């Protein structure tokens, strides 16, 4: 289990680190093996930051991330880190900057081989690479021996997925891995993630695309400005959204037959009609706490004032 325990991330920004930016505030959730957790939120909400902390690329400012019980910030030394990366891998959001431009794209495979599969004979390694490329629907002849700038974003991204699959991982942090793909490869990659899940992988699927999140995930975590506002089983979060931000997010998926103004008016009317005070409602003006309220079994929501509408 990859567990985030009240994890915060504060960046020092501005000259001389004079300003502090809280990118993630007391995030609390977990990714279990054999499960896909969709991390959904708008741009700048802190999704990638959460992923990078799980990969130990960004440090944790407060709280702990544990992987099967081990606090990952205690993993010191190359040996232990390597063991961690053998089990936990990631695919970054921007495929273009994930490649060192002076080397061929397939160097990402060679790097994994050099560190983890030194003793594997050439032929066997080649077969392994080809098999990994096969699973992401890439033609080895078209990919190998090319420079990153000679490949498309989608190809580069799938190459990175293939790279992560070379190791026998237990957890995968997938940051917007679908965004660059066209519809047909998108389905292939989604199916691949389904296979991986069936094989027992835990996947943190970061996206801003609600439909994708709904399609693939078992659990959904909605983040807004660094805080988790709602999380739970995907069918509950999507079927019965509680937080105004989630509601707004769900209704802002473009619909063919409606203009946004209509949708917004409907949303407001529904909000106004619902006069019941819930347990997770706060007095107006009170700051929402970071701790979520369990509104329903396994369905958590950040308390908010009654009648509040999330600001855009």
């Amino acid at each position: 289990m990859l567990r985030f325990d009240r994890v915060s991330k504060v960046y020092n920004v501005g000259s001389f680190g004079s300003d502090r930016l809280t990118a993630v505030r007391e995030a609390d959730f977990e990714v279990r093996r054999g499960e896909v957790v969709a991390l959904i939120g708008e741009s700048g909400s802190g999704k990638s930051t959460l992923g990078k902390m799980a990969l130990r690329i960004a440090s944790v400012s407060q709280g702990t991330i544990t992987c099967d019980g081990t606090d990952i910030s205690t993993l010191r030394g190359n040996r232990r880190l390597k063991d961690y990366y053998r089990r936990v891998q990631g695919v970054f959001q921007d495929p273009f900057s994930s490649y060192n431009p002076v080397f061929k794209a397939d160097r990402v495979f060679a790097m994994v081989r050099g560190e983890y599969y030194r003793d594997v004979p050439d032929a066997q390694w080649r077969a392994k690479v080809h098999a990994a490329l096969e699973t992401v629907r890439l033609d080895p002849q078209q990919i190998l021996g090319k420079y990153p700038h000679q490949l498309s974003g989608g190809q580069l991204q799938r190459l990175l997925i293939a790279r992560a699959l070379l190791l026998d991982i237990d957890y995968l942090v997938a940051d917007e891995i679908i965004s660059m793909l066209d519809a047909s490869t998108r389905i292939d990659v989604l199916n691949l993630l389904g296979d991986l899940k069936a094989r027992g992988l835990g996947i943190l699927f970061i996206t801003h695309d609600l439909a994708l999140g709904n399609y693939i995930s078992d659990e959904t975590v909605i983040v807004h400005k660094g805080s988790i506002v709602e999380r739970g089983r995907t069918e509950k979060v999507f079927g019965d959204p509680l937080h105004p931000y989630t509601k707004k997010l769900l209704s802002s998926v473009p619909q063919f037959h409606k203009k946004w103004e209509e949708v917004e008016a409907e949303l407001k009317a529904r909000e106004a009609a619902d006069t019941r005070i819930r347990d997770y409602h706060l007095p107006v003006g009170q700051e929402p706490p970071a701790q979520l309220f369990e509104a329903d079994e396994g369905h958590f929501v950040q308390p908010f004032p009654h009648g509040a509408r999330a600001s855009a």
Partner: protein
Amino acid sequence: MTAAQPLPDPLAGPEGTAAALPEAPRREALYFALRNKKLLIGSAIVGSLLLLGILAPFFFQNGPNERIAPPGLEPSAQYWFGTTQFGQDIFVQFAHGVRSTFLVGVLGGGIGAVIGMTVGFVAGYKGGWIDEILNMITNVVLVLPTLAVLLIIAAYLESRGIVMQSLFIGLTTWPWAARAIRSQALSLSSRDYVDLARLSGFRTHKIILRDIAPNMSSYLFMTFILLFGGSVLAAAGLDFVGLGPTDGMSLGLMMHQAVKWGALQLGVWWWFVPPGLGITAIVGSLYIMNVGLDEVFNPKLREM
């Protein structure tokens, strides 16, 4: 020779997958290097001067300071570069001068480059308190009154050789290089591919050597060339104030002597032109080589 053959076409068949093996990129770099005019011309000039500096002094029995000929002769078949006002063979001086110039450049520039790069890379990649400490050391060396220190050292040393001179130059000229490399390394360390290298289990020094440095290889070579040129000029400057090698000859010393004994006013152009051209040719060809190397190592430039 493998480099003369065309590159294996990645589309051609199973050989294409050989690119996944580590040797391939090196062979490819060699392939482009042998076809790069700038690199070839630059290395030809540097190579022949180097050869001259290494070999020529063995063919002349007399040293560079020996007065063996009539003074002030123009270049001729016997004295290729003519003679000085004191009857020294300028060609012999030139050959010895080129030799020591290379020595000062390589040693001084090399020491400076090694220190500057190590400090710059570690400071830029590691950041935090390590960066601050290294920055402080860099600044201290930067404001060190070099000449005064050298005067003090010179007072304690019996004799000074070119190696001592290079060592001193190398130990004092690296700060600007460290700063320049630090800022480059700092910006490169935040790239995603550095993070990917970490995810692949690379250690810090491996990330610096394999991922960050190759991205600034021409910048690094440029730094070395500038340090090389700087060392050559610094050595000439030290020679001028009487802190040069107690015996021996350098291109800087030749120019200094030429100017000192009025070669300019007397129109003895063959005295000051060879050392001047020599320094210019060495530093200039290194620069041309650098531009060529940039094209070899940057796959995007190759296609232009």
